[in-house]
């Protein structure tokens, strides 16, 4: 592996704002070589033999949990999955107690998804073990951003761009409740891209322009003009207490991605979605399944490679933790 000799001294991966341009570069480079592993007939390397990774998910997840599990296993780490239903949380154990219990079993890495923003920041102040953020509430989802960046990077020749500098990326839909949108705005801006946020006014965070340096649009047809990447977010109905939108029908009419709307973007613009998709709610099936435009399945494959790279750097033997 090319980056095997690099010194990595970051301990936790919690926010994309902690990650430098160089670090993103290292992770993507490592992920590219991990893809090679994933194409082999025997998809296993001994890189993390003897390391223990605990995946702790306080929210449902298919792709993120599976890809973290597989990522650990393909590098020969011992991977433990713990799914915690909110009902057992209600029985009384605090988050910190649960994590301290697991830490006592001496894992090398804790991969955590939690419904509350800031859960990881709080835990990182109270635990010694490295924490990888697999999603915290509405705050961040850094590995999703890294895999999205890798996916865009792969498509740059197709889009007709040489790099991220000046690339126009539109992130569309439920931005208020989206940790993917936050991590991507930060990560893509770190690399020099222009980021637009497009959605109904009720689903845009307060002072988004100042907070994230993005351009905000409410009219999707205007916002999509000339963009190189169209990233559609899932409408997170489970995080919505209160009437943010009047109906799904109305939402799709104004903020759903269909073919006519996609035509406003650059002719070679790619379509992304972090999944799981609500077909007919935020994206039309013919767009989602269009092999010429949609890179949604590539995102999933890259998710595995990026998570291997992340585990490698954060649990690997080259880690020097501060």
């Amino acid at each position, binding site marked *: 592996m090319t980056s095997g000799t690099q010194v990595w001294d970051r301990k936790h991966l919690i926010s994309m704002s902690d990650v430098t341009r160089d670090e993103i570069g290292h992770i993507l480079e490592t992920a590219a070589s991990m893809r090679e592993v994933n194409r082999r007939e025997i998809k296993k390397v001994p890189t993390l033999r003897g390391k223990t990774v605990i995946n702790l998910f306080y929210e449902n997840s298919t792709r993120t949990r599976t890809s973290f599990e597989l990522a650990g296993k393909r590098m020969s780490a011992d991977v433990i999955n713990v799914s915690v239903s909110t009902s057992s949380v209600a029985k009384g154990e605090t988050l910190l107690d649960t994590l301290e219990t697991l830490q006592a079993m001496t894992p090398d890495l804790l991969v955590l998804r939690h419904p509350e923003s*800031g859960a990881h920041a*709080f835990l990182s*102040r109270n635990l010694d073990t490295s924490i990888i953020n697999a999603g915290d509430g509405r705050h961040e989802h850094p590995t999703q951003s890294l895999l999205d960046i890798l996916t865009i990077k792969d498509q740059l020749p197709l889009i007709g761009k040489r790099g991220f500098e000046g690339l126009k990326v539109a992130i569309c839909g439920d931005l208020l409740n989206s940790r993917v949108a936050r991590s991507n705005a930060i990560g893509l801006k770190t690399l020099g891209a222009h980021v637009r946020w497009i959605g109904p006014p009720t689903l845009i*965070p307060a002072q988004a322009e*100042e907070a994230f340096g993005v351009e905000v649009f409410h009219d999707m047809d205007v916002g999509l003009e000339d963009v190189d990447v169209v990233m559609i977010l899932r409408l997170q109905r489970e995080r919505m207490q209160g009437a943010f939108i009047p109906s799904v029908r109305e939402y799709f009419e104004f903020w759903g991605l269909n073919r006519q709307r996609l035509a406003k973007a650059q002719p070679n613009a790619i379509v992304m979605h972090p999944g799981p998709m609500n077909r007919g709610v935020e994206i039309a099936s013919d767009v989602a399944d269009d092999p010429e435009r949609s890179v949604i399945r590539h995102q999933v494959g890259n998710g595995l490679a990026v998570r291997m790279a992340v585990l490698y750097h954060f649990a690997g033997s080259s880690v020097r933790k501060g």
Partner: protein
Amino acid sequence: MQDRNALLIKAGRVIDPANDRDETADILVVDGTIQDIGRLTDIPADTEIIDADGLTVIPGLVDMHVHLRDPGYEYKETIAGGSEAAAAGGVTAMATMANTKPVADDITVIRFILEKARLESLVNIFPIGAISKGLKGDEITEMGLLKKAGCVAFSDDGFPVMKSGVMRRALEYSRAFDVPVIQHAEDLSLVGCGCMNEGLICSRLGLQGIPNASEAIIVDRDLRLAELTGGRYHVAHISTLEAMEAVGKAQKKGLRVTCEAAPHHFTLTDTDIGDYNTNAKMAPPLRSQQDRNAIREGLARGIITAIATDHAPHDEDSKRVEFCNASNGVVGLETMLPLTLALVRDGVLTWKQAIAAVSWNPAGILGINRGTLSIGRPADITILAPEERWTVTKAALHGTAKNSCFIGHTMRGQVQKTLVSGRLVYSSERGIIRESAL
């Protein structure tokens, strides 16, 4: 003839806004009462002397907004523990909010609090009764009987009175007893699941926000009700530019309206939440820089005449959780005085205005016989070293709870001695002084 108990506080800088006094003077205390002030001679031989040369002598602070959690949440704080924090902070009188368990909505609870205060408290406690039974916002309490039992004001603090009709009745009915009705002004339907100020920081942290309008809407509504009823209305912990301006306009109109500001709101902003610091979480939340400056301006313009802490003790476990799940509230009794003095250094208030805001003014709003160094009044006196620096740490704080949002901050101004009715309850050398064990 009984032995007289005489005490002379000698040669301090005495600031007493009620008497427009700011001069070097001696204070003679006899049997717990202020007997004389000035350059005193002919001091009886058996008089105990406290040398206050180089120190500032002010009326004991009156904090009109304190939660003591007793009865019901003694694991968070008790009357005894809370009174120790008060003594160490130079606070000699505090008005305690009604959100205890059971709620202070009945004279039996008020009697319990006053009896426990008599036995255990180092400082004076003036209970505030609930506006509505059970703090539910539906039916007003027995305000007359509660006042007779010792209540100095009414408030559902912790919760707003959401129903306009109930608030109208409270403001109207309380006129018969001339007590202020104190509102915790937050429109709950706008607060929703919000846990910090809405804005840039909140968006970055991915938390749900509480807009300024949530406070302004309730204050605007209540001011109309104050106009309708002629009742005495007081806004607790005012935190926004909009609400402050609204109160200013109502005062110009001649309505009987007052408000208080908490030191955290005129000192910190939502950026001080940093990386999800749960000790910077309270209701109403830390606001923007613009709001913080507006609160300081409101103090300078005399719209906000009282500084009160909203001292809200919590156990460690209530704060050692994810931000959204952490309890609201911060302790403030021991940082109230230095943070108020910072307003003097910043040119916001004069010395007299600052001391009035923490003593005479709140005493006036509550109608209590405190907050001044007048002859004949109880000798509730705080002696401070105004330039002395100290750092807020958990170990430095008294009382049961340590949930201060100023941990790690350096304070300027340190209480040297606190006297309640002439009795020394705290000194910087000896710490808390109890005559008898609890």
